[in-house]
């Protein structure tokens, strides 16, 4: 049958804070076969006495970075794994990882046509792998990211997104801040709704491929709204990023 997805010992090459509660880890993998943007890895932690836990994390980096992959992890205060990753793991540590996993919520630059990415909070992570891959591959397809964050300090990858948005290669980002907006904020200031999706989708046209990732309520409402706008369900791929992902 298929080649097994063996566990491998990744080395933490770097750690980078994205926001107060979100941190990225660069992992160097000894036997990485490459991934497609949108896929994830499984991580396994094992204690001295053999107790172990596993979690899945979306890959944030583009495949061109192989054999290094970045994962971006939100610290869930009462979680078992994310506080360990944030508070204990430092460069040089080793972590058991296997992957890549998942073959549906993926986009590659070889797929032409307009692209709408809709993210909520840390749901932006697999979308970022697509955006970085798109830039690295030199794709020029019209692409828009609609990203919902709670406040200005909680926008993950903000500087990089704004920089990529300024390169005139067809990528644009639209932000909405649902709880707190800074003075003079010109972006959206409410939860993602049908009117907002219509505006962001408009320049892309009704044929756009859509990828939505975030908390269940956001994914449900955005996907339903896009179907009401007239997109075929088969154009829309979803992935949930719930608070249970501790």
């Amino acid at each position, binding site marked *: 049958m298929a080649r097994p997805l063996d566990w491998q*010992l990744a080395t933490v090459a770097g750690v980078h804070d994205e926001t107060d509660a979100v941190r990225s880890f660069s992992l160097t993998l000894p036997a990485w076969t490459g991934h497609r943007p949108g896929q994830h890895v499984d991580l396994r932690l094992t204690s001295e006495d053999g107790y*172990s836990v596993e979690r899945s994390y979306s890959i944030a980096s583009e495949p061109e970075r192989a054999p290094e992959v970045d994962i971006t992890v939100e610290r869930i205060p009462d979680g078992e794994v994310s506080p360990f990753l944030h508070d*204990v*793991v430092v460069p040089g540590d080793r972590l*058991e990882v296997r992957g890549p996993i998942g073959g*549906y919520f993926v986009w590659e630059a070889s797929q032409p046509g307009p692209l709408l990415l809709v993210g909520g909070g840390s749901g932006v992570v697999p979308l970022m792998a697509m955006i970085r891959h798109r830039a690295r591959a030199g794709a020029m397809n019209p692409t828009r990211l609609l990203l919902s964050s709670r406040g200005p300090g909680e926008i993950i990858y903000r500087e990089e997104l704004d920089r990529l948005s300024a390169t005139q290669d067809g990528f644009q980002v639209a932000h909405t801040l649902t709880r707190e907006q800074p003075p003079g904020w010109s972006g959206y200031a409410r939860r993602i709704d049908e009117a907002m999706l219509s505006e962001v989708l408009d320049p892309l046209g009704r044929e756009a491929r859509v990828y939505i990732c975030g908390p269940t309520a956001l994914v449900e409402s955005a996907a339903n709204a896009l179907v009401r706008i007239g997109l075929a369900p088969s154009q829309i791929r979803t992935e949930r990023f719930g608070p249970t992902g501790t």
Partner: protein
Amino acid sequence: MTERFVTRGFVGRRSSGGPEDVASRIPPGQYITRDFPVLSAGPTPRTPLEQWTFTIQGLVKQPLSWSWQEFQALPAREWTVDISCVTKWTKLDMHWRGVSVDTLLEGVEIDDRAAFMIAWSDGGYTTNLPLPDVLNGQAFVAYEYDGAPLAPEHGGPARLVVPARYFWKSAKWIRGIRLQAEDEPGFWESLGYHNRGDQWREERYSGD
């Protein structure tokens, strides 16, 4: 890896595992959740109940189809089962009401060659199961969860539930089953996930 690797500085939070009898109900690599997380690959389909049917076809003497009303009249029962999702959560003691696959198949005459069941759903989702794994009370089609109609995002109006397998085998929005002589990988089974998906053997991905 032949020798077990120990993650530097990791202790874990075993106290949350609860008493021993609870710990013994958690398959390897899983953690307990009290939420009911939602995972699906696309938008939630919404078929009006008056258009809903449930069909048995394939290797049966005479295909069979029930309307929603007819399906509600089939003998149903309550089920309390533990559910494990391949994304690592396990939820204990989930209460459902529905019709066993055994009851559904009582209505048809099954061809001797039938060895596999393909469940298919609104939205095009499919999943495959060997027939012996869904008989004798091992699988049911649920239309109530916790005493209320099953919500659309959780697979309503009706979903398959196969507690002994990872939850992707419990097809949401199920509309019918097809009996076949040959196995045929379903949606996730074609995308790198394990063909059988037994959570106690940790059969998450193809090759596990």
